[in-house]
């Protein structure tokens, strides 16, 4: 029904701050963490958009904002063309029903007191869909879609293995036919052999039901397999964005390069290969530099200190693929060449 080119989600320039009281003080002495510093993105129907980055880069905050669980401080999020800023709680809730989440840890994301069937049925009850008979039918249908048996309906979570639990979580996300499924590290708690089963399941369901995923992960090998579009985040900014093939084959930003080179790959002795791997990525204090990656970047030059790189400089590879960097890809700073 919907136009395929119309994006399901449009996020424009959102900022989300978290306030914390200074330890040992009362009142307004708060310090602020800016988890998202002006993030914009679009998710189109049938696309798998993947957000990668290390812990603390804001990828989960972004996911929660899109799932309408957090309100951004500034900027707008539109779902199916409806801007969410001015909506009331009730309207938000009905809009949010079109978005479902799959969480990281299938051991803590399922209620141990409910049977698998009840867990999967819960969204339908909350949304008041159909009669009880209809609901049971859709649950059984969802169970078979994710590769479980109808007889699993009455079993409790502890009777399932980790992989099967994640299948239940997926079934719960599927059952109300959502427009968008947000998967927050859905594979990282699973063993490798189970991981590939779940990847195949997610891809298979996507094909069958024309689903749209926002796939959050720090495992680049998984992302390179599944994603259509990759968004690389670093300290609350999107620093590179583009089609997966293009990002993985020709990364533009030095940070993306670092991420890719530190991902283990079978049989390749990559040890010490990344000469640009800078010591102690976690130690730097980046507040004083225009480019957040300045301290860790092997290309850092004077301009990076003073001018914030923006994607409208020459940092485009194609229309779709860009990075926030003064010296993207193979471009080398002139300073370094002369010295």
């Amino acid at each position: 029904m919907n136009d395929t080119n119309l994006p399901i989600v449009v996020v424009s320039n959102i900022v989300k701050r978290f306030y914390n009281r200074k330890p040992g003080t009362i009142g307004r002495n708060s310090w602020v963490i800016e988890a998202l510093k002006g993030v914009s993105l679009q998710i189109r129907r049938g696309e798998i958009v993947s957000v990668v980055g290390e812990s603390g880069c804001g990828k989960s905050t972004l996911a929660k904002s899109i799932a309408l669980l957090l309100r951004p401080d500034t900027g707008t999020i539109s779902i199916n063309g409806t801007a969410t800023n001015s909506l009331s709680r009730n309207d938000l809730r009905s809009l949010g029903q079109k978005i479902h989440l799959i969480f990281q840890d299938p051991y803590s994301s399922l209620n141990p007191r409910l049977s698998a069937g009840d867990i999967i049925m819960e969204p339908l009850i909350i949304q008041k869909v159909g009669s009880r008979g209809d609901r049971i039918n859709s649950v059984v249908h969802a169970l078979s879609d994710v590769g479980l048996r109808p007889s699993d309906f009455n079993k409790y979570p502890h009777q399932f293995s980790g992989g099967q639990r994640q299948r239940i979580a997926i079934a719960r996300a599927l059952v109300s036919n959502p427009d968008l499924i947000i998967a927050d590290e859905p594979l990282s708690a699973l063993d490798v052999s189970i991981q590939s089963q779940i990847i195949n399941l997610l891809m298979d369901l996507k094909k069958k039901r024309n689903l749209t995923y926002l796939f959050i992960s720090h495992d680049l090998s998984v992302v390179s397999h599944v994603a259509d579009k990759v968004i690389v985040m670093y300290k609350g900014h999107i620093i590179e964005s583009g089609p997966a093939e293009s990002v993985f084959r020709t990364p533009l930003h030095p940070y993306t390069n670092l991420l890719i080179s530190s991902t283990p790959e079978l049989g390749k002795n990559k040890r010490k290969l990344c000469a640009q791997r800078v010591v102690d990525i976690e130690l730097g204090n980046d507040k004083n530099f225009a480019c957040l990656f300045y301290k860790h970047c092997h290309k850092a030059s004077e301009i990076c200190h003073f001018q914030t790189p923006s994607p409208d400089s020459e940092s485009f590879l194609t229309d779709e693929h860009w990075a926030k960097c003064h010296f993207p890809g193979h471009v080398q700073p002139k300073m370094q060449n002369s010295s």
Partner: protein
Amino acid sequence: MDEAPLLSIKNLRIAFPIQVADGYSDLFVVNDVSLNLGAREIMAVVGESGSGKTTMALATLGLIPSPGCIKNGKILFNGLDLLTLDKKTTRHYRGNRISIIFQDPTTALNPTLTVGDQILEAYILHNQNSYIKVQELVIDLLVKVGINDPKRIFDSYPHQLSGGLRQRAIIAMALICKPELLIADEPTTSLDTTIQAQILDLLLDLQEQFGMSILFISHNLALVSQFAHKVAVMYAGKIMEILPAKDIVNKSVHPYTKGLLGLLPSIETRGQVLPSLPGSLSEEDVLSLGCPFANRCPSVKEICHVECPSLSSPTTRHQFACHAVPTINELL
């Protein structure tokens, strides 16, 4: 190669009691495992959760959790059987000549002590020395594990540090007594990929500097294939295959190893359905009399359900346990 190995595990069996219909029965979490680790060698033990890799490592330190017990087997360290030692002597070895790095840096440190004091504690326990001298030693070591301002870290509490820094502190704690054998139990699993790469670089540097052996436990085959000398693949308490890490892509023969290799996603596999091993590791596999992998194996034979294959060795460097693999002669 001819030297006596530093650590030699022989026919180790570790059982945990489980409840069955009539009373209790033994579940062999580690079942007839034998392996040799030479001096200055890095051996990786790879397996899914529940394959017994951690239990095996804990046995080396005499730390098997309570209901479990070692049924038979030997653990020889420099020719001495660690299992015959009394508690006091075991304590002399543990943390001093054999030490361990645990998986989760957030829980491995004591939140009520400063990082420096914890590292120091490990040293004082095994060596008589003055506090001031040891403090210098710790600060030197903190520099070696790649910490820029060791004085500040020495006086910090664990919650003030990031995951990567904590893991560095734990590595320092494990190395303070200059152990001959370091057991690394998934030391990088809970870290980001960039930090993981840094920590691995560091461990390998230190391994060369200190000349120690590392038993590296991991579930990530791609990761260990980058640096280990030998890889042992475990499944349901049994060793399926041991081979040099450089051969793992081309020369591995066991269906489980091959299965694991095939199902890793990458940029090359885009748009394809990943090959997968059906099912998952279950208790029945561990209890089975036959090959524990039989239920999931693509090339399963009748004999696999009845008789457990033993570890055979076409060469001393490459061993595997499988009925379905062509005979040893054909392989050579």
